[in-house]
């Protein structure tokens, strides 16, 4: 029992993950405080407010963060909040395409340039985030499609961090800490995070500086439930349930085996 061929474990996992896609379980997803805090903050915004949607995660992390991105974007559009999008990953254009195709309101209800705007890619990590906090216009001269900022009424209103009512940072790395340091501590802008699960461990260092946090695909599933439109996150939650249960079972079995072999000795 103590030593099983690993491949047995791998096959079990592979098959177990497939089952819920074919035959969904649909266990309810309870809402956690961190997710509710983000929801409440977005709910408090309206057509007068501007939200920043910052993308610092790649296409390869989609299974974890795409559900949250789409759900939050749908909520922003429902509240008619103005949205500024920019990002720090070279493949982010594919991500923006994915969001716009899932949130068609961005091209129907929203007017590009006035209601939402995509500023494109930016290199430079923390330095860039800090520069944007104090002067957006010196960093971006034009949007992604080459339209100069003078012709984009929305970005004309966003001169610095002070003009933004909520930062939503999609993040698979350290960008949340950059935004906290330069946008929240420096300028007082509320910051919320759409992150991968492991970030939870580090983000809770800053309870006072953070509105809330969507923890990985679980956060996405919760948010989908709150806005009343289930999607990819909820479907993946079944796979998460099954796989986590497997983890618990396997750890229990391993320990029973371990204790038994020790007894024999």
């Amino acid at each position, binding site marked *: 029992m103590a030593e099983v061929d*690993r491949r047995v474990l791998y096959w079990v996992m592979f098959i177990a993950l497939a089952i819920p896609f074919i035959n969904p379980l649909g266990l309810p997803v309870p809402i956690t405080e961190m997710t509710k805090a983000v929801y409440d903050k977005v709910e408090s915004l309206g057509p007068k407010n501007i939200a920043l949607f910052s993308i610092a995660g790649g296409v390869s992390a989609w299974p974890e963060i795409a559900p949250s991105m789409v759900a939050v974007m749908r909520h922003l559009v429902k509240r008619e909040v103005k949205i500024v999008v920019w990002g720090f990953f070279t493949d982010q254009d594919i991500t923006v395409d994915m969001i716009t195709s899932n949130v068609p309101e961005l091209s129907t209800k929203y007017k590009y340039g006035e209601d939402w705007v995509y500023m494109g890619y930016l290199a430079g990590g923390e330095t860039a985030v800090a520069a944007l906090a104090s002067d957006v216009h010196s960093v971006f001269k034009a949007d992604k499609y080459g339209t100069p900022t003078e012709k984009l009424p929305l970005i004309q209103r966003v001169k610095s961090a002070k003009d933004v009512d909520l930062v939503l940072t999609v993040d698979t790395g350290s960008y949340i800490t950059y935004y906290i340091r330069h946008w929240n*501590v420096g300028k007082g802008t509320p910051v919320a995070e759409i992150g991968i699960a*492991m970030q939870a461990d*580090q983000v809770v260092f800053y309870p006072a500086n953070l509105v809330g946090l969507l923890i990985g695909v679980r956060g996405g599933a919760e948010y989908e439930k709150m806005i009343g439109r289930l999607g990819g996150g909820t479907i993946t939650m079944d796979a998460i349930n099954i796989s986590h249960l497997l983890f618990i079972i396997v750890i229990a079995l391993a320990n029973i085996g371990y204790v038994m072999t020790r007894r024999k000795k």
Partner: protein
Amino acid sequence: MTKATYSVAADFLAENLEEILLITTGRGFSFVVLVLSFIFFYIAIQLAKKGKAPKIRRMVAMDAIDEAVGRATEEGKPVHYSPGYAYMTLSSEQGPQTLASIGILSYVAGLCARFDVPIIYNTCIADSLPLVEETLRTAYRNEGKPEAFDPKCIRYQPGQSEYVSAVLGTFQRERPAVNMMIGGLYYEAVVIGEAANVIGATQIGGSANIHQMPFIIATCDYAMIGEEIFAGSAYVTKDPLVTSGIASGDWMKMLLIAITVLGAMLELSGVNVISQLLKW
């Protein structure tokens, strides 16, 4: 000076400190800590020069290297060494970990040269290649076997996942007896670690990237946690100048522990001097 003028002067200082000292607001105390780190280091070196070099407690993982290479010698199998993803460049904040890793590599390569054990070095950090090649070449020369060095033992892969796939392939094809992964590790830690367990390799791992520590501990026989990797090359070379760096780090820890204790007590009694100082 009356109390009023004193407080006016204090307010003026507080408001204009950035202009007067030019120190960016919020980073003042960090700068003090950095300067203190330099001073501690200087004092530790002076002590070392007087023969009072501090002793470091044993580092099990570093002691295990000799034994691991010995095992590879007996089995006639290679040693696999890799430094992790580390943002693929020396010029990022992960750079120092790669340098520390190459420092340990020089010791490992020396052992491999001495016992004629082949070494395989897999990396995706292009700008570290000159240092790696030089380190390996020097290690072989110092053992008097410069002709035994084969630059083909250095394998470059153009990215993180590419590097993972190449290491997976290498493990099954060349079956190293030892796997060492030390440096700025990311998700590769658990993959490489488990794949090395499949072939039964002895593993020594280390990283200062907190997010990978659970996996290094879970998969490796010997783990270097956090700053241990920075102490590694000093530990094996027994260079007193470098061990003093570790001592000065210890003093810094003790100082900041003291500040924490003092600060917590003052905060609890309603005095926020320390937190103001830290925010300066």
